């Protein structure tokens, strides 16, 4: 039983640290950061990034 759960744990760790999962995590984190900076309607972020948004071609603002 213990050996079985250890095997599962090893597989989960292996999967988490695999290149596709790590690449997916990296892409998701970068994508969400980009969305927050350039497109989020969250007022604090919008105000902080307002000038950057208006000065970058293709980025829409209010």
């Amino acid at each position: 039983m213990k050996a079985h759960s250890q095997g599962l744990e090893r597989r989960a760790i292996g999967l988490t640290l695999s290149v596709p999962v790590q690449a997916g995590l990296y892409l998701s984190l970068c994508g969400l950061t980009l969305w927050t900076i350039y497109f989020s309607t969250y007022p604090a972020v919008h105000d902080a990034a307002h000038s950057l948004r208006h000065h970058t071609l293709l980025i829409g603002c209010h």
Partner: protein
Amino acid sequence: MRPIQFIALLSLLMGVLVIFGIPSERIPTLAANPRIQLLTDPPLQQIRPFEAEATSEQYPVKFVLQALDQQGDLLQLARIHLVLQTPERNIWLPTDFPWAEGSQLLELEALNPVQFEQMLPIRGSYRLQITVKSPAESFQENLDFFVTEAPIKYVFLGILVIVLFGVGILGAWIIGDPAAGDGLSESVRLLLSGAAGVAIVVLLVINFKAGWAETHPAEMPISPTKQAPVMQAEGRELSLEGDPSAVVGQPLALTVKVRDLQTGQSLPDQDLEIRSTQLEHGWTAFAYQGSADLTWQQHFFDGAPHRIAARIPSSPLQVSQIIEVEGIAPPLSIRLIVMSYLLGILTLGMGAGFWIRRALLRSAN
């Protein structure tokens, strides 16, 4: 007829058309027809769109429209009705004011000649639809002009593309390193992955909450309609009428009236000055100088409070109204399309990073 003779005849005909035909379309040799003359300051080729959050002061474009008769003189007692249309929306290449795209920026009707200033919010092809009505003549004309994008926006986009591509390469370089586990223990790598997961969840929650608040705005108490600003002096009354609140993307109708207090009759011959100023940064969105016989509809493309001020020069008469303009976030479809471009560049960068890493490994082996 031999082919060579046919070609020679065709060339001759085309030459005649080029010499006489095309110039007659381009140059309005319509001395016999009334026409519109448009003057702008700066000249049409030098107009740039409004630059929000600019470090330098922003000025609107000055337009002078004159309806001329057959002799080229000013058409008397004519009224000019104009509609200024913004460039059509292109969802694949949006501007920084998406709600200004494909909209009616200004509608104005006043006595000939008409002089006004208007801030042009976006790049692209604008259209002025002009209708002239006078006892002698009535005609319609469309004038198109193109506004080129501010170069600084290309620079910022270029920097963003380079940074995204670089971030993609860097990420793939580290992730694709077969010896990545040698430097850091497995538990540290798991911890970093967990932290990345938590950051993703936090960002998702923040953005979903912001989006939810946008689509379900808190109910605001409806403020009672404010009384139109009115001022009386020297036997005349100046009033400004219009809704004190506006929404980006929708034109707002405004009217200025000057009337004689004794007779109650309107005084359309009075000189009038109107200025619409964005209050956060103090730039002029719209201005008008001319006779008091005026109605207009203005599209407030920037979601910030504006002050509309009207005054009669060389008199104490002046009124003003604050207009609250509600800003609206760009359409989700446009944001998603541009986001896909950015993610595409990042993914390309990652692909390049993996490819470089593999190529180096292959050459090392």
